[in-house]
């Protein structure tokens, strides 16, 4: 298993059971979400930059870990998003194998096209970890 997968799965575990979203946490969700599944969280591992270090084959890796929260509410939908963000930031402070985990950006989107307002909040973390060249499955 690539360290990316291990980090993503660890994030899903850390984010499962939060106050606002409960067990509705989806790893790499691609298919549509149902209205009944909201509020929820989706987790993705995205772009990654890799720098070989001078010391014997060590690779320094900086990966975007993307956590998106979705909510649907007649009123106060942005309040729900902010609650999700608070839950996520509180729960996701460290991941095994990750040297530094830093929240970089928060973005929100609101949509009023459905029968009820739907909104999303995207928290993008940078996860810095190291592997040996040729051994991406082990974060060191």
């Amino acid at each position, binding site marked *: 298993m690539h360290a990316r997968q291990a980090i993503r799965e660890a994030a899903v575990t850390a984010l499962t059971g939060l106050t606002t979203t409960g067990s509705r946490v989806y790893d790499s*969700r691609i*298919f*549509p*979400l*149902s*209205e009944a599944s*909201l509020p929820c969280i*989706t987790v993705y591992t995205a772009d990654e930059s890799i720098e070989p270090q001078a010391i014997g084959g060590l690779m320094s890796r900086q990966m975007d870990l993307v956590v*998106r929260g*979705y909510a*649907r509410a*007649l*009123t106060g939908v942005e309040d729900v998003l902010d609650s999700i963000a608070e839950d996520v930031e509180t729960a996701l402070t460290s991941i095994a194998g990750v040297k530094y985990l830093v929240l970089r950006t928060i973005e929100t*989107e609101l*949509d*009023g*096209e*459905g*029968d*009820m*307002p*739907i*909104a*999303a909040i*995207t928290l993008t973390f940078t996860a810095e970890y190291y592997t040996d060249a040729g051994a991406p499955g082990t974060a060191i």
Partner: protein
Amino acid sequence: MTVAGSEVLGLLDNEYEPVQIGNQIIESNVPVLVCRSSDVAAVVHGSAVIVDGDTYAVREVRKDGTGITELVLTESA
């Protein structure tokens, strides 16, 4: 059905219209009430609509200019 306190004739449509937010699709339906414009001339955003015991609020008024108005609804508490 009742629109802004008055009984009117109309047709409620509730088509599937998925919402795309970011790159995520969320399943959704949009209730639209089709009425004679003369029956709903006083309707404004937020007017209450009751159909079969379900309460909605008007969020958009689409007059087509031929005497027909579509009221786009949102669920109401």
